[in-house]
């Protein structure tokens, strides 16, 4: 197997981590919707933390993307 094909396969494997990130982000917003559903007045309190959690989880997806780019173009 030559290097270029191995790089492509490596990059493809690296982005499989995004499955976990999808589950994580879904979890955060499920919790957010649940919290607002049970107690609509808490919306302003939990919304900020929910968005912060989303940003931190999205960052993990981008770490995987950076590794994929490093494999593909490094």
């Amino acid at each position, binding site marked *: 197997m030559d290097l270029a094909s191995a790089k492509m396969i490596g990059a493809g494997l690296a982005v499989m981590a995004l499955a976990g990130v999808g589950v994580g982000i879904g979890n955060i917003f499920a919790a957010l919707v649940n919290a607002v559903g049970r107690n609509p007045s808490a919306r302003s309190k939990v919304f900020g933390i929910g*968005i*912060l959690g989303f*940003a*931190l989880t*999205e*960052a993990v997806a*981008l*770490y995987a*993307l*950076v590794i994929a780019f490093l494999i593909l*173009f490094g």
Partner: protein
Amino acid sequence: MAANKTSPLEQFTIHRIVPIHIGRLDASFTNSALLMCIVVGLVVAFMALSMRGARLVPSRWQSMAELSYEFIANMVRDNAGAAGARYFPFVFTLFMFILFSNLVGLFPFSYTVTSQFIVTAGLAVTVFIGVTIIAFARHGFHFFTFFFPEGAPVIMAPLLVPIEIISYLSRPFSLAIRLFANMMAGHIMLAVFAGFVVSLGLFGVLPILFDSVLIGFEVFIGILQAYVFAILACLYLNDALYMH
């Protein structure tokens, strides 16, 4: 068409506008440096001009400046406590610089300063080294008890301490890569979809519509990433000042 095929990574190349070579050091004024000057100029102009002739009942510009000040002041006070309030100017500068860099990069023919890893790494390492120095100045060698969470059984120490040390040392990396990767990925997506427009002919309207929505999303992500960087700096400061 295939002859002048440009890759989506081409938008990140650095051009020297004014070549300056000091001995072997290449200190040229690049497009990245130009955009940084523009960003700093915009932040200073925004804050200074908005607060000119400040009235008790604020005008629109003044209330925007005051809103951003209060937003960060509340965040610093909530997350870093009373002792952390003296670091407010640093966190505010950090937040405004990253926010304006992210947003100015979305203009056509502009350049996103924070899409270069060296820029975000510089900011993240500054925060990390600053916070570590503050921790040592405040706690001395007692700082090393930070790596052993209290209440944990001593048996677990050989396992816990290396993990805690590694996770502490990975903070500047995660801080830098989070911002850099968000900005780079956003701009690459914009470029990739824009590249589809001509080849799709009549249906080229669809990538244009998607790009419009994507720019809106990128504005949101730019603001969010600036906020995340600032709030993580406050949380690390909290760790340094109060040690859990």
